[in-house]
């Protein structure tokens, strides 16, 4: 491509260089409107760029040709699950893993600096008291009417449902196992407080979601579980 084919004015030359760089994004139709309009104005007066655009479109058409995928994703997914199960400590959802990591770092730092450990312990104790107070206020039905509002359930999702908060230490595999026990699947969440909404498949648990919630709340991996009021429970 020779610049001599283009307007010689300095501004036009700069515009031409810009246009040359932007042609691929016009060819794949991902250019924003202001840039598209600017490029179209340049194309109206630049034959070389019009030819360049055609060339890019030919190349795009060649490259966009679909490659037939010969494999089913299932074997690969099965291998992925095996990998996840083989490393349960590393596969807990990130929210919980980060908490573990912070604890480990704190512990290492504390060992090196005893005074710091005392300060940290005092701070942790204060936070624990605050957290327990908050949790008690949130979970006691008569003291937290706003929680009942939360547990009214999502009208968009019908059927028996539970609200569940899993323990921070639970792994993904344990969470799945617990949910399978009650025929549940996560349909939304988590809320900022870690609350997830669980739909119960038709069956014994769905017939008595309160019993399912009681069972779940007794499990070590569950911090809280309750049936959703008016969500299909008999």
């Amino acid at each position, binding site marked *: 491509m020779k610049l001599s084919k283009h307007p010689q004015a300095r501004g036009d030359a700069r515009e031409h260089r810009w246009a040359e760089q932007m042609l691929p994004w016009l060819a794949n139709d991902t250019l924003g409107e202001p840039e598209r309009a600017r490029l179209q104005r340049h194309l109206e007066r630049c034959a070389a760029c019009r030819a360049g655009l055609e060339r890019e479109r030919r190349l795009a058409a060649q490259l966009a040709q679909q490659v037939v995928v010969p494999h089913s994703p299932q074997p690969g997914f099965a291998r992925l699950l095996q990998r996840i199960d083989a490393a349960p400590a*590393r*596969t807990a959802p990130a929210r919980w893993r980060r908490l573990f990591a912070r604890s480990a770092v704190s512990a290492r730092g504390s060992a090196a600096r005893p005074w710091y450990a005392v300060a940290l312990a005092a701070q942790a104790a204060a936070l624990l008291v605050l957290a327990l107070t908050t949790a008690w206020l949130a979970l006691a039905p008569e003291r937290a009417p706003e929680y009942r509002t939360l547990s009214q359930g999502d009208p968009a999702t019908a059927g028996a449902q539970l609200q569940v908060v899993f323990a921070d230490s639970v792994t993904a595999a344990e969470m799945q196992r617990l949910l399978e026990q009650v025929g549940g699947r996560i349909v939304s969440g988590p809320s900022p407080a870690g609350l997830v909404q669980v739909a119960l498949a038709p069956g014994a648990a769905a017939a008595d979601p309160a019993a399912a919630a009681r069972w779940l709340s007794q499990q070590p991996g569950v911090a809280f579980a309750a049936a959703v009021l008016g969500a299909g429970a008999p």
Partner: protein
Amino acid sequence: MPPARAADHHRVPQAEEELALLRRVALGDRSALERLYAVYHRRLFGFLIRFTERHDLVEEIINDTLYTVWCKAGEFRDESAVSTWIIGIAYRRALKSLKRQSFWLRTDGEAMDAPDASADPSEETGDWLAQGLARLPLEQRMTLELAYFLGHSCEEIAAISGCPVNTVKTRMFNARRRLRELLPQLAEGNGADGTGRTR
């Protein structure tokens, strides 16, 4: 036909649905992971198989990518699309794996000899184009394929490859210039009949 959206079938059709799936994956929901795996297995396989004949390597990169998605789903922030985030993970894994392959070892910034035409993994694209592409530095070729095969914007490619937008533009510009030098038939429009073959 406007080739502009020729890659539409690779794009995220329902970004909100993918975001919902990712949030469920963050909670440890394996059925959501399975759904996400199915969507991205197809998309990534089609993309990655263009760089290597080794299906096992492609499957390994996909496995690594979705494993990272499983582990880090809770860290995803809405600063980018889910597809940009996941393909960015795949991009980094692929770059690392492909650079380990002797095929991609370079001297003076150039790829080694182009692959044998009989071993071309993308027969429909055409030997001549495949050989030209194989002679591009890997980052340049990745940029070209992200734009024209997966249909990403310049800004999305910058996010995927973790580099400034201007670097993406430069890589793309250099890739196109090199292809023009290597493949004069591209400039003339020969071989653009859908088969890409000139003979």
